[in-house]
C-alpha cells in the first residue's frame, strides 16, 4: 500500500528549489512577494515534515526511489526516525527565521531582498537534501549546496563579512574535499555509494587500511563543517558578521546538520561494531571535552555579543559531540545511546536561535554590537531582553529549561560510562557559561545608562522591536522552557528510542 506521505521526502526538496526560482522571477516583478513565497513554502515544508515524522513513527521507514531506479544503482531517499526528527527541527527554525527576517532584511539589506530569499531557499534545499538522502555522494552534493549558499549569505552585509566568508569558503571547501576523498576510498573498496548497501558490503573490510583512512577523512571533513574545536577557526567571524537570521541558522542548524551527517555516516554506513573496533569515540570524547572548555573560555574574552555567542556555539558543538562519543558505551535507559546528543541538537537550536535573534534585534533597534554598550537595555527593550535572559539562563542550565535537561542527561551518561572527568568538564563549563552570560545580563539590567544618576535611567523610553521580530524571539524563548518540561515528562522520547533501536544502541533487541 502506497501512502501519499511517502512522496513527501522528495517533495520537501523539490518544492524548495522551485520556490527559489519562483522568488527570483516574482521578485523581479514585485519585490514584496519574495517574503510571502518564501514563508508559504517553508510553512508547507514544515507541515510536510510533521506528516513524515508521524508516518515514520506509526508505519515505519520511508524509502523513496528517485526516478524509479532500484538502489544501489539509483539514488534513494530514506526517512527514518533520526532524519525525520532532524527535518522537523530544521524546518521549524528556518520558518521562525524567515518570519523574523521580514523587517530585519528590509532594514539590513534593502537592495538585496529578492536575492536574499532566493539564496535562503537554496540553503534550505541543501539542508533538507542532506537530511533526507540515503546516498552518500548525494549527501556530498547537498553539503556543497548548503555551504555555497551559506558563503553568499554570510557575505551579504559586505565589508568585514567578506573576509569572514572567504575564510569559511576556503576551510569549508577543504572539509568537503576531505569528505569526497573519504567517499572515494569507500567506493574503491566496495563499489557502492548507497548508505544501506555500504553498511552491508563494508563489514568484511573493517580491518582494511583504506576503509579506516576513508573514515578518518570523513570525520575530519565533517568536523571542519561542524566547527569542532580546533577546526572552528572560521566560525566566530562568520557567525558574528552575518545578518541575524543567518547567524541563527548557522549556529542552530547548519553546523548541527553537519553533526547529523556525522552521526548518519558513523552509525548507518559504518556500524556500532566498527566504532567499537577502534578507539575513535574515546578520542572524540576528549576532543569534545577540550572544545567545551576552550569554547567557553574564549567566549568570556569577547567584547562583541555575537562573537561571544559564536564561541558559545563552539562549546555547544562540544556537548553534542561528547554525547555522541559516549553513545556507544551507554545502554541504560533513558539516557542511552544517542538520546542526549539528539536532545541537545534540538535544545541548542532553540536556545542559540533565540539568543542570535535577540542580538539581531538589539542591532536592528540601536546598532548595538558591543556588550559594554548594553547599559539600560533592560528598560529600553524589555521583551527582547527578557527573552534573551530566558535563553541565557537556559544555556547556563537552570531547571526546568532545555539546557538543564540536556546537561543532566549528558552527565548521567558520563557517569554510567565511568568517565567522571567529563562530569567535571560539564560542571565547569556551566560555571563558565554563568560567567559570560551574567556579564551581559548585568550590563543590561543593573548598570545605569549613560549619564550615571539613578533618576535618569527611569527616563529611558521604551523602544521595542517590531512585532514581526518580537514574535519569533518570544516563541523561541518560551519554547526553551516548554520543551524542557516536555523532555522531563519524557513526551518526545519514543522518537529517540526508535533511533537507538535502529542503530542497536538500546538494551532491548
Amino acid at each position, binding site marked *: 500500500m502506497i501512502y501519499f506521505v511517502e512522496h513527501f521526502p522528495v517533495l520537501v526538496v523539490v518544492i524548495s528549489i522551485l520556490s527559489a526560482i519562483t522568488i527570483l522571477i516574482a521578485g523581479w516583478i514585485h519585490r514584496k512577494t519574495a517574503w510571502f513565497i518564501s514563508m508559504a513554502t517553508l510553512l508547507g515544508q514544515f507541515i510536510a515534515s510533521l506528516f513524515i515524522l508521524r508516518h515514520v513513527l506509526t508505519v515505519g521507514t520511508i524509502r523513496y526511489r528517485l526516478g524509479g531506479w532500484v538502489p544501489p544503482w539509483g539514488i534513494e531517499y530514506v526517512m527514518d526516525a533520526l532524519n525525520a526528527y532532524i527535518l522537523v527541527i530544521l524546518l521549524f527554525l528556518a520558518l521562525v527565521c524567515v518570519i523574523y527576517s521580514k523587517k530585519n532584511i528590509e532594514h539590513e539589506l534593502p537592495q538585496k531582498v529578492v536575492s536574499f530569499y532566493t539564496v535562503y531557499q537554496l540553503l534550505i534545499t541543501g539542508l533538507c537534501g542532506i537530511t533526507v538522502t540515503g546516498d552518500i555522494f548525494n549527501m556530498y552534493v547537498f553539503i*556543497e549546496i548548503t555551504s555555497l549558499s551559506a558563503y553568499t549569505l554570510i557575505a551579504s552585509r559586505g565589508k568585514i563579512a567578506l573576509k569572514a566568508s572567504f575564510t569559511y*569558503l576556503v576551510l569549508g*571547501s*577543504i572539509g568537503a574535499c576531505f569528505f569526497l576523498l573519504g567517499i572515494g576510498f569507500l567506493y574503491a573498496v566496495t563499489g557502492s555509494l548507497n548508505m544501506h548497501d555500504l553498511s552491508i558490503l563494508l563489514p568484511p573490510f573493517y580491518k582494511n587500511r583504506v576503509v579506516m583512512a576513508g573514515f578518518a577523512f570523513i570525520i575530519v571533513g565533517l568536523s571542519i563543517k561542524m566547527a569542532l574545536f580546533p577546526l572552528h577557526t572560521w566560525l566566530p567571524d562568520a557567525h558574528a558578521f552575518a545578518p541575524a537570521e543567518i547567524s541563527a541558522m548557522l549556529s542552530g542548524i547548519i553546523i548541527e546538520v553537519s553533526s547529523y551527517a556525522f552521526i548518519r555516516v558513523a552509525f548507518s554506513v559504518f556500524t556500532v561494531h566498527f566504532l567499537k573496533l577502534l578507539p575513535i569515540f574515546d578520542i572524540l570524547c576528549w576532543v569534545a571535552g577540550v572544545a567545551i572548555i576552550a569554547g567557553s573560555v574564549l567566549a568570556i574574552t569577547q567584547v562583541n555579543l555575537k562573537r561571544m555567542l559564536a564561541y558559545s556555539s563552539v562549546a555547544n558543538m562540544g556537548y553534542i559531540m561528547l554525547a555522541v562519543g559516549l553513545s556507544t558505551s551507554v545502554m541504560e535507559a533513558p539516557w542511552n545511546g544517542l538520546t542526549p546528543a539528539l536532545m541537545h541538537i534540538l535544545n541548542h537550536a532553540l536556545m542559540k536561535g533565540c539568543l542570535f535573534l535577540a542580538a539581531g534585534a538589539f542591532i536592528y533597534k540601536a546598532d548595538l*554590537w558591543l556588550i559594554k554598550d548594553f547599559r539600560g537595555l533592560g528598560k529600553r527593550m524589555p521583551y527582547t531582553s527578557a527573552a534573551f535572559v530566558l535563553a541565557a539562563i537556559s544555556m547556563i542550565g537552570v531547571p526546568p529549561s532545555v539546557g538543564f535537561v540536556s546537561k543532566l542527561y549528558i552527565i548521567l551518561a558520563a557517569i554510567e560510562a565511568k568517565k567522571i572527568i567529563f562530569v567535571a568538564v560539564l560542571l565547569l563549563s556551566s560555571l563558565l557559561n554563568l560567567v559570560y552570560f551574567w556579564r551581559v545580563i548585568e550590563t543590561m539590567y543593573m548598570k545605569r545608562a549613560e549619564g550615571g544618576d539613578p533618576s535618569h535611567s527611569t527616563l529611558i523610553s521604551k523602544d521595542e522591536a517590531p512585532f514581526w521580530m518580537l514574535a519569533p524571539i518570544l516563541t523561541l524563548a518560551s519554547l526553551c522552557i516548554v520543551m524542557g518540561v516536555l523532555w522531563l515528562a519524557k513526551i518526545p522520547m519514543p522518537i529517540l528510542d526508535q533511533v537507538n533501536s535502529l542503530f542497536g544502541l538500546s538494551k532491548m533487541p
Partner: protein
Amino acid sequence: MEWFVAKVFAKYNYWVFIILMMIGLYGIIAKNNLIKKIIGLNIFQTAIFLYFISLGAVKGGTAPIVSEEMIQKGYVYVNPLPHVLILTAIVVSVATTAVALSLVIRMHHEYGSIEESDIIEKSKDQGMT
C-alpha cells in the same frame, strides 16, 4: 630497487594525486594573495578528481558502450561511474571558484587590495573584532 618500482611506479597515479594535493594545500596555507589561495584550492580539488578518475580506469578498456558483439570479442570497459561523479564534483568546484572570485572582487572594491595581510590590517581599523 624492485620493491621501489613495485611500490612507486606501479601505483604512480596515487602518488601523483597525493603530491598534487599537497601542492594545493601548500598554496592555500602559504600564499598571501587571495587569488593564489583560490588557485591552490583548485589544485587541491583537481587532485581528488584525478584520484576518482584513475579509480575507474581499466587497462586496455574502451568506452563503456555495452553491446553483445563487443563482449564476445573480449573487450573490457572502463568504469563510467567515477567519471559521472566527478562531472558533478567539477560543477561544484566551478561554483565554489565563482563565489570565491566574486568575494575577492568585492574585497578589492572595499579594501583596494587582494593581499590577505593588508585586508586584515585594514579591517582592524573598522573595529568589531
